[in-house]
């Protein structure tokens, strides 16, 4: 079946197997490999994207459910190849090791900071509770969120 979705502001379409997930559509049909395919059961958050503005796991959305809808992915956060402030903060804080979980985390952090510019530590943990990192132990990821939040508020 043909699925037509507005991805990062641009209408894209592809013929997919009717049982395909949004994640498969993004990666295999559209070549957007930023959203990662890991657990395929909504546990790890590495496929986090926005569907009509809501943070979701791309693996748990049927591609057909995104037909004629709006999707934003990690690729939509970078502007002309320049890193987003959240991505910069992840690099500087050492919040990236193997990097596989990073796009999902960056999307979840962007979702949080768009809603709440100064989240409490508990709010940050809650917002990231659907993303799993098996390398960093999370401390540096939390540092990166604080760094990004401070910079995005205009502080140093």
């Amino acid at each position, binding site marked *: 079946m043909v699925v037509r979705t507005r991805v990062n502001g641009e209408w894209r379409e592809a013929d997919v197997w009717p049982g395909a997930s949004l994640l498969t559509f993004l990666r295999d049909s559209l070549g957007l490999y930023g959203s990662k395919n890991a657990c395929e059961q*909504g546990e790890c958050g590495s496929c986090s994207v926005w569907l009509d503005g809501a943070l979701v*796991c791309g693996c748990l959305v*049927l591609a057909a*459910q995104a037909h004629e809808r709006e999707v934003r992915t990690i690729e939509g956060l970078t502007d002309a190849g320049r890193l987003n402030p959240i991505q910069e903060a992840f690099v500087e804080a050492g919040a990236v090791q193997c990097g596989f979980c990073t796009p999902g985390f960056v999307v979840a952090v962007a979702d949080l900071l768009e809603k709440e510019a100064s989240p409490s530590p508990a709010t940050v943990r809650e*917002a990231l509770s659907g993303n799993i990192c098996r390398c960093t132990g999370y401390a540096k990821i939390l540092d990166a969120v604080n760094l990004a939040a401070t910079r995005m508020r205009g502080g140093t």
Partner: protein
Amino acid sequence: MKAERPEAIPLAGGTDLMVELNFGRLRPAALMDLTRVTELTLHRQENGHVFLGAGVTYAAIVNELAGFTPLVQASRSVGSPQIRHRGTVGGNLGTASPAGDALPVLAAYDADVVLRSQARGERSLPWQAFLTGPKKTAIAPDELIIGARWSRVSGPGSFSKIGTRNAMVIAVAGLCLVIDEDHRRVKVALGSVGPTIIRATQAEEQIASAMSNSGAWQDRSITIPDPVIEQFAELVASAARPLDDVRGTAAYRRHGCRVLARRALRWTLEERRLPTWL
């Protein structure tokens, strides 16, 4: 549409069904996307009744139904932000896992499940008639779940569950306790400790009559003695019908019910002394 294609599997938030598809365990002849049916995403309150559309997500409950404390507490405990944006109450009902977090709340509210078919129109089934066993329901092949409906309960309540961490937890045991001041009843429902949701009716009767005998229904300042609370917790634990499985042993689950019951009763009794729920 469901009448024309009764073999079509309804798909809402996909948090259960998509896993089956992704892992190749299910290859349905057809899928039916319910997320475009706006009617299902609505909730309303009228004449003391609450109707919660099958497509209302857990995120929507947390944002829009703040007055329903146990329902909000259960919804907040579901998965993660990503899962709460997609998962729906109708999905919990349709999947009918004994671990569905919304189900003990609907059971404690004595909710009806509203079903509709083209041929026979709408019908309501009490939750216990709808949930017939683990992952089994009384739905007919040409029917869809429209939502859940219950009479609004006046009184405090709570939902709590046991799991290995604070997010992404399939409950090892879950409990909803609701105090119904108007009918002078305490209602307790258990999840994840039996083939389906269980109401601890003996415990409900024990605590309601203890509150009658001590005059606590009329006078909220009267405290319930600890031995009465312990007996209540024991009766709740004995209502469980748990199994050993990968998430926990039967003995641990029964013990968990005891602890959850004791705490939930203490919290709600404390809250009715400070009636913020009014």
